């Protein structure tokens, strides 16, 4: 068994049994064939769903059509996107520990700018999250800004404190998907379908999902930049 804390070498990757490789190849081929069939089945000319979205906007809980589509009408897609993001991070972490930072300590100018910009970016992320209900914005944009502030901090020599690198980080990473899945399934207690928010609660539920998703997306993007699993992690 290889050392789990070390980075895997190319030789270790190629030790996968041929049968497993064949199964993986068949599964990937099946997915590719399914995607090709789906794409070839699409109508050549389509009127789109603008009118259908516009008709249902009052039920969505928000006033911006993109947010309504992403978080309500097409919730399945966004829910699974959160899963894909988390899976990408698990893939990176499976490669081994994060390489030790080679960034030199920041100079006075960079340190000042980082201290100035990081809180400002967090504020902008909060604004984008809130604005998403009625204007362009939302969890992914806010999460991207939050992730960028994390990257800026990491580039300027900041380290995640060891007390936060364990379960607090992991809870933040899974919070978005967990809250989304809990709300998606929770509304079924009211007799609705999966992801079918009651119109009177839709606005609040979407904000709750987006708030958790913003934190998770930001933390995931910054953690992806680290390039590996934080040290001393469970």
């Amino acid at each position, binding site marked *: 068994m290889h050392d*789990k804390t070390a980075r895997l070498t190319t030789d270790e990757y190629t030790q996968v049994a041929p049968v497993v490789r064949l199964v993986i190849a068949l599964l990937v081929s099946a997915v590719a064939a399914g995607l090709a069939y789906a794409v070839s089945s699409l109508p050549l000319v389509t009127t789109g769903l603008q009118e259908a979205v516009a008709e249902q906007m009052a039920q969505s809980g928000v006033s911006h059509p993109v947010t309504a589509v992403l978080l309500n009408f097409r919730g399945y897609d966004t829910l699974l996107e959160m*899963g894909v993001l988390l899976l990408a991070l698990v893939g990176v972490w499976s490669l081994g520990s994060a390489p030790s930072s080679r960034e030199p300590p920041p100079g006075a100018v960079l340190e000042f700018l980082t201290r100035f910009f990081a809180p400002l970016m967090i504020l902008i992320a909060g604004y984008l999250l809130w604005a998403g209900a009625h204007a362009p914005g939302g969890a992914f944009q806010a999460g991207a800004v939050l992730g960028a502030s994390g990257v800026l901090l990491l580039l300027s020599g900041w380290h995640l404190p060891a007390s936060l690198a364990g379960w607090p980080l992991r809870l933040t990473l899974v919070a978005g998907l967990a809250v989304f899945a809990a709300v998606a399934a929770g509304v079924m207690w009211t007799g609705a379908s999966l992801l079918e928010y009651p119109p009177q609660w839709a606005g609040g539920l979407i904000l709750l999902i987006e708030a958790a998703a913003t934190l998770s997306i930001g933390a995931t993007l910054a953690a992806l930049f680290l390039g590996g699993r934080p040290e001393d992690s469970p």
Partner: protein
Amino acid sequence: MFGYLKKFERVVVGALILMLALVAGYWIAKKTNRDAQNA
């Protein structure tokens, strides 16, 4: 096969597979029910 994953990562992968299976099962059941009603 998953020896290179630590506990947290195994839990995440397991939960994602379970969630995907549940969502797919729910969607198939709902579609089957809708098709039966339309028939």
